[in-house]
């Protein structure tokens, strides 16, 4: 037996063993016969106790993965990532994905709880027949302010013209939201594609820009909680959470109307467990479940039979349940396709103006 001959294979064996040991944890594990529902959603978007209840009732396991932006989720699925049963994109992304044939039709026979969905909301929805999407959570764009420091608050976009609050206000750093505020102030649709209307809205937003501290998407919560900012444009769900910490914060929907953002529940084409996905959608629209979820998340599930089950603080809050007239003037942001370029141009001009 040659010495070298006996040594070399053993070195190869060591390498092979290391490779196998490294890969071993990932080899398919057996056992666990319960079906698994794979949900791809925003972080912390379902009350954990409710998910556990669904797992018990349906004898399944729910695995939730999270994404941080509609665009990242879209890029990933578009490149071919599969295996998810249920997604929670925002409406404009739902219409884009639907136009690309990425979303499956819903089987209404498996969704008896959809009779509870608020018909007032469906009047505004992009998919009012709930043919491929079911609304899950709604949030209103509102104006929040500090009660003790802002005198004579008016629920109007005109607040951003107030000279006495100069430099102590923020608006969202979001093309559609902020131009949308200008459009609503003038009484136009937030989904307009009329160049003249957009030009007039641009002038308004440029005027506001000179009066506010900055365009801001995250820090405004901290800012208004600490009193650094006195008036901020923000989302009702976030402001409700700020209120828990600083009760001096109040908010209102501008009377000219506002933007309503909705995340929908959709089942992607090729979902491995469409049956469980339907069951989960139906479960989330059970009025008691919807009410519990709404209370946990501070967003509003548009389920009319859940409303009476909510706490009084939410039920009589006009920032959450809008006045019918104001709601009639409010809209959901739609995907405008090629007309998006118009908005991008106006937004660039606003951002570069002095």
């Amino acid at each position, binding site marked *: 037996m040659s010495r070298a001959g006996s040594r070399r294979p053993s070195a190869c064996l060591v390498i092979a063993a*290391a490779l196998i040991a490294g890969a071993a*944890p*990932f080899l398919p594990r057996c056992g666990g016969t319960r079906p698994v529902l794979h949900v791809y959603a925003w972080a912390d978007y379902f009350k954990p106790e409710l998910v556990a209840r669904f797992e018990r009732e349906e004898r399944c396991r729910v695995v939730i993965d999270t994404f*941080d932006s509609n665009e990242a989720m879209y890029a990933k699925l578009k490149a071919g990532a599969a295996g998810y049963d249920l997604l929670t994109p925002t409406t404009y992304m739902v219409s884009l994905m639907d136009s690309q044939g990425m979303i499956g039709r819903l089987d209404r026979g498996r969704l008896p709880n959809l009779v509870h969905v608020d018909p007032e909301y469906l009047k505004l929805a992009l998919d009012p027949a709930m043919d491929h999407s079911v609304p899950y959570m709604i949030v209103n764009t509102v104006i929040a302010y500090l009660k003790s420091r802002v005198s004579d608050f008016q629920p109007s976009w005109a607040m951003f013209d107030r000279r006495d609050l100069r430099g102590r206000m923020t608006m969202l750093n979001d093309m559609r939201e902020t131009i949308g505020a200008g459009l609503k102030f003038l009484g136009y649709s937030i989904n307009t594609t009329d160049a003249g209307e957009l030009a007039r809205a641009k002038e308004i937003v440029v005027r506001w820009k000179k009066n506010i501290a900055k365009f801001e998407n995250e820090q405004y919560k901290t800012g208004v*909680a600490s009193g650094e900012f006195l008036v901020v444009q923000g989302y009702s769900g976030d402001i409700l959470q700020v209120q828990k910490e600083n009760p001096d914060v109040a908010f209102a929907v501008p009377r000219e109307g506002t933007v309503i953002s909705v995340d929908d529940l959709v089942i992607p084409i090729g979902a491995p467990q469409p049956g469980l996905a339907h069951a989960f959608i139906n479960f989330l629209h059970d009025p008691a479940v919807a009410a519990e979820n709404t209370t946990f998340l501070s967003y509003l599930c548009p389920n009319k039979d859940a409303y009476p089950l909510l706490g009084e603080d939410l039920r009589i809050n006009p920032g959450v349940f809008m006045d019918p007239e104001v709601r009639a003037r409010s809209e959901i942001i739609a995907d405008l396709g090629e007309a998006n370029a118009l908005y991008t141009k106006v937004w660039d001009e606003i951002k570069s103006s002095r």
Partner: protein
Amino acid sequence: MKRSRLPLAVTAAVLFFFYLPILILVANSFNASRFAGGWRGFSLVWYKRLLHEPDIWRAAGNSLLIAAAATAVSLVLGTVAAFALYRFARSRLQRLHYILVYTPLVAPEILVGISLLMFFVAARVGLGLFTIFLAHVTFCVSFVAMTVLARFQDFDYAVVEAAQDLGAGWWTAARRVLLPMLRPGLVAGGLLAFTLSIDDFVITFFVAGPGATTLPIRVYSMIKYGSPPLINALSTILLAVTFAAVAASQRLSRRVPEGSG
């Protein structure tokens, strides 16, 4: 002669710049306020909440598992690659090999991520922890190979040949001579691979499949919609563990020469 104060000032400024954000993070993890709008009193509420977040711990477990496995495998493959690159440096094949090993170091992450995803989809490999592991090995191998190769380049291979002349078999020579001399390179490469793997976001985001969320992906999605103070608490724990590990390893490595000397 008076010594210049400049080096001291620069050191202080650099330390300030590097460590102040971390200190603020640690302080805020004990802040009762959710929005860090100001100091609202010392509180362990975020640490308590962290105990009841199984998703975060599952993600942390996934990250550790992948990092450990990717480090182990890329250490072996990377060292073998470095050996080949060093021993047969003049062959045309090895020059091609060098380019192949070098490319992942300079390729933009987003490109690597999306092309790996498209490859896995085309090859019908189900996305999950295993694909993340494969993706991490692909970039970790390059880092290990380069660090180990640097170590190879400043040692005299004649030492190994001398060992063989004195009767050591190939395996004994590798184990008793080669490996101890490569050890600093192996340790550095392994630590580098582990660090890169545990905090990779871009590539991981694309190749992760259902049920395979790692800690960076979880943290990133929480920044927008979850509770940022939970992230502060988690980061503080990770920092404490890292510092403890570094301190322990320095202790141990200091003791060895004293004991043998």
